[in-house]
């Protein structure tokens, strides 16, 4: 599914150069639940962003579904992201001015699906997650757990093969955190590849494989 070859990411300012990822090599097979652990600033999120095609490596290669993404233009990256990847964030990242329905609908909108099809899919997804009664609500009218469920619904609405979760339980209480992890496990069982960044060993335990990062590289596997 994903292959990283000698991947390096360096951030530069006028005076400082910071190596966020240092010659990483990694293979993530399709259908795998992968957890990445590590202290703050070790490069977890940078790695996740590169996997999600939101950032480009300074050096090395990223092969997604066997395709080398290095030469892809912004438009091709957007298309690949839209068709293949779903994101889940710690702070949910719902658009405040859109309703729950509209937030979940967003990826389908950019896939240019007809309105009827979008409506059916969103309603089904909200029903599946027990959010049908909240469809017309705005994010600030929901609890944290509900917001993360909406974010999860938005993440999977376009049926992505890869889900990237960045501390998805970080802003939730343990009950809601367990609930989100249970949902992610369900998605994994359905055959999706999941890459999750977490600090919490309890949630890392849900993964098939856990790697630890340190100073831009892998510390242990």
């Amino acid at each position: 599914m994903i292959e990283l070859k000698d991947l390096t990411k360096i951030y530069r300012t006028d005076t400082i150069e910071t190596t966020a990822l240092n010659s990483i090599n990694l293979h993530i097979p399709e259908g795998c639940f992968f957890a990445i652990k590590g202290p703050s600033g070790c490069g977890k999120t940078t790695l996740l962003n590169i996997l999600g095609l939101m950032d480009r490596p300074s050096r090395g290669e990223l092969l997604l579904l066997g395709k080398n993404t290095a030469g892809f233009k912004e438009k091709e990256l957007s298309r690949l992201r839209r068709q293949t990847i779903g994101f889940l964030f710690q702070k949910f990242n719902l658009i405040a001015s859109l309703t729950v329905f509209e937030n979940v609908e967003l990826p389908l909108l950019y896939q240019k699906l007809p309105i009827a099809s979008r409506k059916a899919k969103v309603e089904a997804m909200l029903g599946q997650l027990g959010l049908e009664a909240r469809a017309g609500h705005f994010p600030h009218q929901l609890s944290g757990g509900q917001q993360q469920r909406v974010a999860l619904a938005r993440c999977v609405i376009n049926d992505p093969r890869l889900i990237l979760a960045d501390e998805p339980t970080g802003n939730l209480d343990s009950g809601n955190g367990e609930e989100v992890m249970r949902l992610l496990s369900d998605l994994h069982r359905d055959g999706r590849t999941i890459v999750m960044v977490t600090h919490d060993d309890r949630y890392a335990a849900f993964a098939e494989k856990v790697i630890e990062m340190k100073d831009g590289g892998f510390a242990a596997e």
Partner: protein
Amino acid sequence: MIWKHILMAFRQIGRQRFSFGIAILGLAISLAAFGHLLSYSRYYLDYDKNAENHREWYRLRYSEVHPEMGEHASASFFIPPARMLLRDIPEVKDHIVYWPSVIALNLICDGRSFQMQERVFVSAAFPKHYKMDIIYGNPDSLLADRNGILISESFSRNFFGDVNPVGTKVYVGENPRYFISGVFKELDPNLHLRHDHYSLWFQDDEDNGSSEDDWYLRGHVRVRIPDKEDVKIVQSKLNEMLEQHRAIIGQKGQLQAYLDPISKIHFMTGLKDDAPTMSITSVYTILLLSFMLLLSALVNFLIIIGLSWKKRADEFHFRRAVGAGRKELWYQLFCEHSTYFALSLLLGVAIYLSGLGLFSSLIQIDVSRYSLLTFPIAFSTLFTLLGLAIVSGMIMSYRYSGVSLEQDVWHSIHRNRGITVLLFAQMFISFAFITLAISMALHYSFIRNIDWGWDNKNTIQYKYLTINDEGRQNYYDARLLRTRIREIPGVTKESVSNFSVISQSLDDQNGFHEVQIYLADGSLETPVSSYLSSTIPDFFETREIKVVSGSIPEEASASQVVVNQSFADKYLPNPLGSRLRMSGDEDETNWYEVVAVVEDAWFFPTYHEMIPLITILKPYVIKYYQISWQEDRKQEVLPALSALFADAAGSGVFGYSASELELAQAEFYAQDKAHKDISLFMAMFVAFIAVMGIYAVSSASIHTQMKDISIRKVCGAELSDIIRLYAKKYCYLYIGSGLVGMYLANNLIRLYNSRYAIVPAASFLAYPVAAIVMALIVFIPLCLNIIKAFKADANQYLQAD
């Protein structure tokens, strides 16, 4: 505390140099431009107001009402009764007469030609009326003698240098006839009867032996009536006087006298022998536009200040956290706002003063003479602007001082609403401005490039009174002069006429006589109105005026005439062979025959409609000579012509004058050019302000929505999706402001065009062109901001704090 706030304001300017530069400098330049345009408007609005007690003075004019043909209003009045006014109408306390003679004399002074295009005769009270400042001469006897000539300072300096010329003799031919009686300081340019030399008409108590024949003399007559209530009485007495002299005057219709306040005559339209110096609507349009320009800059100023405060929401929050109340925040923001505004004001005044010279040279009027300090419109605008700035500053300070208290609500509910309203105002002003400016530019281009219908290239016109007769004393033989002109090397062709081919106004002085015509076909019992002039047959071929039907004989008889297409279209469907007669001609057997119809030709600006014109083909007197030169031989031909006319005039009493046709035609539209240039300049400035305003607003509004854009990006949105999303709001603004702006522009364009007889369809291209220009102004800055936002690192907006 106030100094701290002012210091903070300067720090903010330093931190956001670009946006504050646009806001402050934009407002300052607009203020300066507004001041310049006010001075320009004042130049016209103050016309003749520098005359002594101008509110007590009225122009006297008459109109003639025909039962069939309506009212023919004239700007002039009969000269003989003007002198009876003081004697017969006690309500009239003073009067002046101004009569420009159509005949130029061959005057010689100090052995050189003393060229005066026309002699201007005035009554003795004239110097007092225009508050003349006398440099040389006895102020009490400037116009005491009919042979005295009062000249201007510039005229004197050009001819006599720095010498006092008073007493110098002026000869007609070889006979000493006149003398210089005084030199006056240059008159204000916006005086209606301004000239550079004046001669006495008659002393009021002088017996000039005026006879009934003198009633044909008409000129500019002014009377002073101190009491407004008396105006009606004077008018009624004047009507009685005209009725008594009706037989002498020889007019067929009912005569009616009018008294117009002299400050208004400058803008009057519809008078047959006078054109307004400037359309009053044009003056008000300029005032309105300049106010809109100022408003647009003020809106921009407020938008940019508002956005800068929005960016400082965290700072305000921290200030509150350390104990500042809303009142203290409001006070700080208001002080900052006032500092920015005061800076703009000071800069504006500095730019106004330093730019006066440049603006004056652009419009060719010395606007520095028209102080804004005593101009009520300037004061009311300044107070309005100050009021707007203070009120808007107070409101904005109040709102933004509360940002930190209600930040969430602010962002989610009131997002940019106020700024959107301001943006709408700015866009609609820009729309109106740009549409108007483009329309004026197209219209100007049309009138400058109009097909005049005749050949005017590389041609000069001499005005010189000659006759087709050999050996008549004091007159030069026209045929001989033509022969001598043709002999000049480099002259390609010459033509002659009794009308000026470059006439600003259609009046007798320019050779266009308004006449009533009876047609012999019996279809019309009542006369029709037309213009009459004369030329010789070869004029049409020489000046390349096409013959539509019939033919023009090489040697015409005195009863043969040519009519133009307009005359034929209006009165005679089959004009060839038709006969016509002048109304008022005593000899009713005196019929003219139409031998040809020629295409319409513009011998006048397009303020006038194309006139029906009858041209007699055998004139006795010849007044105008049009001479064309070979493309590259102008420098050779013009001096030769000048020498020839000097030689011809040297042996007679008549003088001559000359003007190059293309320059004179450009002079027709000098005001239009100034208006067009001003409008285009202002439109460009408004467009610049609008681009900056839209860039600033879209930049700030997109900056606040970076997180939304990042979320959309991770959801798979492409650049085009984001552009479409944000362009939608601007599309609504664009369409809404476009409709309002173009509606306003349409009204202004109609007002502006009302002074022209013809309006080209091309003027309407202004609307689509303005729509395209505005689309670029609105959407390019927006797209640039969206591209910038899309390229930004989305991760920083998506990660946890």
